[in-house]
């Protein structure tokens, strides 16, 4: 039930997948909105704080997800998937993992250049490593911005592909991601 099998996703993988999906879109929306907030907005301080806190938690979730993936590998692609579909989806999914990793690292580097720790919802602090290279906050900021748009574009592509399998190919791909067995 918890673990993946040859043909279906277990509860853990399903939950991790949707948790990450919601977090990524939520972080993107918050990030997109917060950078243009008015200085006197009541959200000016809280939203960046939530954004950073959630980002750190997402990093932990991703670490758990990778460990789980290693411990309980995902099922094989459906037989009905064409070769190019298997290849493309594998590349996109790999890019999504790399993109999230880059977002976490670049976000951390923006906030910690001056040695300030990142407070996660006031529960605990992630210590800073300080400045690791010159113009760190600016360079990391650019990476954070460009990777964010790329990641969201890829995530939308990933989601549309799932819908294509569901509505056009009428196969089991999307249902499987909700833990359904074939």
């Amino acid at each position: 039930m918890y673990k993946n099998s040859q043909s279906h996703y277990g509860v853990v993988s399903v939950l991790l997948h949707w948790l990450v999906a919601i977090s990524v879109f939520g972080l993107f929306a918050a990030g997109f909105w917060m950078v243009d907030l008015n200085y006197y907005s009541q959200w000016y301080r809280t939203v960046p704080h939530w954004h950073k806190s959630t980002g750190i938690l997402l990093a932990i979730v991703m670490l758990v997800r990778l460990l789980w993936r290693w411990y309980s590998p995902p099922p094989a692609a459906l037989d009905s998937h064409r070769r190019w579909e298997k290849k493309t989806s594998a590349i996109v999914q790999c890019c999504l993992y790399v993109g999230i990793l880059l977002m976490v690292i670049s976000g951390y580097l923006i906030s910690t250049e001056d040695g300030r720790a990142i407070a996660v919802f006031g529960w605990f602090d992630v210590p800073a490593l300080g400045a690791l290279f010159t113009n760190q906050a600016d360079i990391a900021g650019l990476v954070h911005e460009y990777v964010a748009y790329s990641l969201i574009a890829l995530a939308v592509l990933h989601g549309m592909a799932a819908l294509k399998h569901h509505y056009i190919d009428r196969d089991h791909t999307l249902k499987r991601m909700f833990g359904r067995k074939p």
Partner: protein
Amino acid sequence: MKKLLLAASVAAMMTLPAQAADYVIDTQGAHAFVQFKISHLGYSWLYGRFNTFSGDFSYDADKLTDAKIQLTIDTASVDSNHAERDKHLRSGDFLNVSKHPKATFVSTKIVPKAGETFDLHGKLTLNGVTKEVVIAAEKLGEGKDPWGGYRAGFAGTTTLSLKDFDIKMDLGPASSTVQLDLTVEGIRK
């Protein structure tokens, strides 16, 4: 031949213009500061500075009105002791440093006032906008330094309106202006 050389060098010396004392601002030894302060919410001061700049001035105590100064500031070097805020200050909301990496001040005239104080008029270019500003300045001192050189130091203050320099971010009514504080120590060239 010797006489000719001597005559030539004497002639050369005579034709040199009268030396106004030229100084280079001591950024090498960091005895010069470009700092600013701006109100935070109307409740306190936020201080910052530009770490990288260069400039020189010419000054003669007897001919104050002939004095000149020019200063070039690397706007990306803004430092308010908070990396995230500095990143924001460099962005399009404030200083647009990728578009306008330099700020400059070039003096145009000097109006002496009481004692060692004077008004330093000049053109300040910041965020791509050039405006006439008046810096209320004061000579702090001059004389020989302990290492064989000669130094002169000045301080000056002016207040800029953020709007005048096309700075878009609205920090609230108490923070619409920023006070610029310059302290320069020059080493005579």
